[in-house]
């Protein structure tokens, strides 16, 4: 059997999933790193669902974090004021997010990319400011408490049986919950983009009028993408904050949103998995880069960096990067945009996943040469009908 690159991809996927499952024991069940892993997965869901919206349908929404917050606030308020159970509120919150997504999606229909970006920024800011101002209803800047999920004892026992370190610390269940959510939502989005809607999404992204002329329901397609991605963001937000216990409006700042966008863009916003991996990679590197361990001798040479905002910690032997780690990250974002528009991770995935690798531009030229050869034959047999071969490579204007 012929070896194909896609096998590497499958292998890597397997390793990744295994790593995801074994992550808690791999990091020694350290609650901190499990929490970091869980947060990374949360961002991964957000980044990939944003890429569903921006990368697949070309709708640049800056309100993704706002939808995340909307779902969480809705769930929190349903629990507090309506008295729903957390799981009921989860479903309620997702539905409310979907409903608002539907309305916003319809409002934004006719808007081109830039207008949509501006409109969603406005929506996100209005929502955040209103949440912040309506202290009585939303808890204002103090945030809203979201009570944790309770897992029934029977189910606990089952998990305890299958996962030996289930009880090691309270973040392990939360981590697994998030990992399952990550996997399920990614699978769902993956199947969505492999379905006919995925093709419609991209057709609409490429050319709305042409897609409409081919019978693609542009309105429904765009709104569908908007609603689905908002609902996934809401779902992720609700589950995550059920474990964290509190949501504050500052989570929905445009600055947090730009982090999600940067994650998706660096990973590759036209590829769900690329965006998700980008988010995981960046979240971990931001944690790691907080302090870089260096030999003291080197650190003593770097003391001048303190003047521009680094802190050199000679006792601990680390260089704390403070704001500068974000600068590097911003630079990476801009360079990625300029030179690798498909992101850094998704081209690798595309390369691995390419079904019939031989069919590339090179083959196209080969095909054209073949055609020219046919032409030549015909030119001999029927000179009047054949075209001029020299013009064959010129594209039409």
């Amino acid at each position, binding site marked *: 059997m012929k070896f194909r690159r896609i096998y590497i991809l499958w292998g890597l996927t397997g390793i990744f999933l295994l790593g995801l499952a074994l992550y808690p024991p791999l990091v020694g069940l350290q609650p901190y790193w499990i929490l970091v892993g869980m947060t990374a997965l949360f961002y991964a869901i957000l980044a990939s669902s944003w890429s569903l919206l921006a990368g697949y349908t070309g709708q640049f929404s800056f309100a993704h974090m706002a939808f995340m917050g909307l779902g969480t606030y809705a769930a929190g308020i349903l629990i507090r004021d309506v008295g729903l159970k957390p799981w009921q509120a989860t479903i309620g919150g997702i539905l409310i997010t979907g409903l608002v997504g539907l309305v916003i999606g319809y409002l934004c229909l006719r808007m081109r990319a830039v*207008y949509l970006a501006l409109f969603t920024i406005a929506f996100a800011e209005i929502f955040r400011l209103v949440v*912040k101002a309506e202290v009585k209803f939303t808890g204002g800047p103090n945030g809203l408490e979201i009570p944790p999920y309770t897992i029934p004892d029977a189910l606990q026992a089952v998990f305890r049986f299958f996962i030996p370190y289930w009880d090691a610390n309270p973040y392990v269940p939360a981590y697994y919950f998030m990992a399952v959510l990550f996997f399920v939502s990614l699978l769902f989005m993956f199947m969505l983009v492999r379905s006919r809607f995925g093709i419609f999404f991209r057709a609409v992204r490429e050319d709305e009028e042409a897609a409409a002329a081919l019978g693609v329901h542009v309105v429904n397609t765009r709104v569908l993408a908007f609603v689905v991605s908002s609902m996934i963001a809401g779902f992720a937000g609700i589950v995550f904050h059920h474990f964290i216990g509190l949501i504050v409006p500052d989570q929905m700042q445009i600055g947090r949103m730009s982090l999600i966008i940067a994650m998706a863009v660096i990973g590759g916003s036209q590829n769900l998995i690329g965006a998700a991996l980008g988010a995981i990679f960046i979240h971990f590197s931001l944690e790691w880069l907080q302090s870089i361990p260096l030999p003291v001798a080197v650190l003593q040479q770097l003391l001048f960096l303190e003047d*521009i905002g680094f802190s050199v910690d000679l006792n601990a032997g680390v260089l704390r990067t403070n*704001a500068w780690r974000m600068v590097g990250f911003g630079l990476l974002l801009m360079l990625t945009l*300029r030179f690798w528009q498909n992101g850094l991770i998704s081209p690798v995935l595309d390369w691995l996943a390419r079904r019939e690798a031989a069919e590339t531009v090179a083959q196209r030229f080969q095909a054209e040469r073949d055609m020219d050869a046919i032409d030549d034959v015909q030119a001999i047999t029927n000179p009047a009908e054949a075209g001029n071969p020299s013009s064959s490579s010129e594209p039409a204007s």
Partner: protein
Amino acid sequence: MWPIPDILLDINFFQITSSYIFRLILEGLLIGIIYSLMALGLTLIFSVLNIVSFAHGEFYMIGGYVVYVLLTRFKGMPGLVGIVVAALVTFLIGAVFERLFLQPMAKGKVDRPSEYAILVTFGLSFFLQFVLLGIMGPFPKKAPRFWSFPPIDLGVIRTTKATLFLGNIPLSGGRIFAAIIALLALGAMLWFMFRTWTGWALQAVSQDRNAAAVVGINPLTMNTLAFALGAMLAGLAGAVLVTVFSWVPWVGVPASAKSFVIIVLGGMGSIPGSLVGGLILGVVESLGTGLFPDPARAQAYRDVFGLIIFALVLWLKPTGLFGREL
């Protein structure tokens, strides 16, 4: 004809001018002029390059920091020098960024230019914010004032160091100064746009790139010029406001949001639109805050008033007040 309602006959003009509403409107107009200056830059960029710069607020922020650094490093430096330097610095940064990151777009080296433009300017804003956070630190900075009123007392008009009292209405000195500078800059800009060859060239490019290229205007140069000028106007607004407000690396975020509101309200790419839009936004914010029923939330909703107008205009009349057909 309709009979004149009694209420109109009862108008006491002195009462009006010293009334609460009038004061709010006056304050709104004063700050609106500065908003206009910022929005004019964004309009210029949009009309020539056909992109919205999401990094506009960061040029505003840098303009302020330049003045702050100059005035604190060199004590006794005239404030106007600081403002000129700030304008030059932001002009240069704008030009360099345009050359490096936006020109490939104009040359067609980038797929999907509209998406690229959104993301790359957004990336620039992200980048500049953190660079300035690294260099200047997160502590809010406030530049020393370089402007005090001479003591005047003419009855109707009197001054203290920082305030001009117009009848009963106190007007902030810093703002009056900022508004004067903004008006001068606006005038200079309009003169430049409508009375010089380069200005005509910019307008030509904004109306038809190809036609402009045919008559010997280099659209790429005009792109750079427009972006740099736009950045400079934002920098100028920052430079005049740094003495009024306090400066942090993310000070540009609400400022750029306001510019978005204005250019959409006035119509994307319309110069009169950005002027009128700025004034309208200033007044709406002022009146909204002053008249919102619940005082506890009035100021908290200040930015919301503008944003709601913004959302409504985008939704109902995306061409804005003076916009050209899309």
